[in-house]
């Protein structure tokens, strides 16, 4: 039943932590697909389970029910070299240079030295940090660290890159610039990207498809195909279509909040 272009298929995914009366349902009946080369975003309120979902996709934790398929086969454990993750805090190893950070996963995957060094060099060039290859993370700005993290992910030549609110820790201006940078890089490499954010603007600006997640227990409550043409530009953000899409998502989210409040399920 797998669709031909699908890279990732999520079927009826559920995740509950703990058991008995104290059990917490983090995710409930999540299903979606990601096509090859697509840029898919996931938006939702804080604490709705977005990170949990990402960790299950990455094979870091197991689902309680349902399954995740990558190119047809089930994900049960981390798949180094096929699934790469970019974390919110860049998570660069502070005692290694930018260059060494990018080669590090390749070392772990036993890629021969000349290959991995060439790959690291070209990825750093791609993200525009070739001149900073020898710098240490504490010498780089937040945006630069994220770019190294992205280069590190790309260097593994993965089937899909999972990004967990990668620009969350940056200020607004850097965030916008990084978004554009990411689109440029995505355009060049056409990698499949799954991007988690809580910024509706960012999600719409960057993606082909936006998935909207509800409050805990997280469910996919909307799926929006973004009609804006590529390449995306800043003035699109002010356009009527953009505003409509944004409002649609916003209404979905707030409707969920109101319903939850009415049912007395909102946490303090």
């Amino acid at each position, binding site marked *: 039943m797998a669709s031909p272009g699908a890279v990732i298929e999520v079927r009826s995914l559920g995740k509950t932590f703990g058991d008995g009366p104290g059990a917490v349902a983090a995710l409930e009946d999540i299903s979606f697909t990601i096509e090859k080369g697509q840029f898919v975003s996931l938006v939702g309120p804080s604490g709705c389970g977005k990170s949990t979902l990402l960790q299950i996709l990455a094979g870091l934790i197991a689902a309680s029910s349902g399954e995740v398929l990558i190119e047809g086969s089930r994900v049960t454990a981390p798949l180094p070299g096929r699934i790469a993750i970019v974390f919110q805090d860049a998570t660069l*190893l502070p005692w290694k240079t930018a260059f060494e950070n990018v080669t590090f996963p390749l070392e772990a995957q036993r890629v021969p030295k000349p290959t991995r060094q060439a790959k690291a060099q070209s990825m750093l060039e791609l993200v525009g940090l070739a001149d900073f290859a020898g710098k240490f993370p*504490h010498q780089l700005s937040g945006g630069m660290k994220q770019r190294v993290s992205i280069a590190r992910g790309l260097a593994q030549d993965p089937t899909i890159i999972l990004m967990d609110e990668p620009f969350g820790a940056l200020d607004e201006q850097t965030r916008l610039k990084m978004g554009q940078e990411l689109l440029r890089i995505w355009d060049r490499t056409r990698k499949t990207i799954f991007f988690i954010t809580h910024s509706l603007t960012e999600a719409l600006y960057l993606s082909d498809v936006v998935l909207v997640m509800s409050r805990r227990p997280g469910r996919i409550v909307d799926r929006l195909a973004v009609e804006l043409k590529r390449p995306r530009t800043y003035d699109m953000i002010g356009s009527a279509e953009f505003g409509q899409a944004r409002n649609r998502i916003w209404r979905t989210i707030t409707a969920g909040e109101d319903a939850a409040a009415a049912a007395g399920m909102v946490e303090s």
Partner: protein
Amino acid sequence: MTARLARRLLVAAVILGLWEFVRRAGLVSAVILASPSEIYLAFLSSGSEFLLAFRVTLGEIAVAIVIAWTLGLIAGLFLGTAAYAAAVIGPLLSSLFAIPLITWYPLLMIWLGIGSTSKIAYAALSGFFPIVLNTLNGVRQLDRQYVRFGRSIGCSHLAILFKIMLPLALPSVLSGLRIGTALIVIGVIVTEMLASVGGIGFWITYHRNLYDTGQVYLGILLSLICVLVVNLTLSRVERRFGAWRESEALER
């Protein structure tokens, strides 16, 4: 020669000069203080015996270091990664840390005699606590994100431990090693002072009983030098490997 170094040497020279003067002028009696020249004379007259005592002490320190470092690091790394064990044992260890360990030495004396073994056991025990506690804390305070990263790129458990967690925890670990080693040096010398047949501590006590101030101060000076050497070397190592940690802290 930098200005700072010159200033420090000047201060040291002034202190030495005053020290010498205070004795020469008879302001302080010979029974209380030994001047630098008296210490030097004591050194010359003691000759090989003093150096022999020094060798004994150094030997004990070395063995204690090997024991404390190995056990402390292994225990700290293990506890750091085993959350439940750490939650159970960690608080017990840090409560035990408050006990005056020196009061346990007479017990060690009964069990192991007054030779080198009891000294080594005591010193290793003193050094063990700070090493375990600092290593444990260093590993526990790591951002779990790094572990997830390691797993996502395909590192084995051991690889994650040694290639990611240990380097990240290194500043804390080194700090623990520095404190622990200083305690080892002092532990050996103090227990030698209490009851021994050799070593610098014994030298100090023996000559104190003879009121030979020159030799006593010589012994104390050497002990000080040992502690300072340990502190300086390990601080240097700490700074070299922890440089990124300080820059990060400054950033915030």
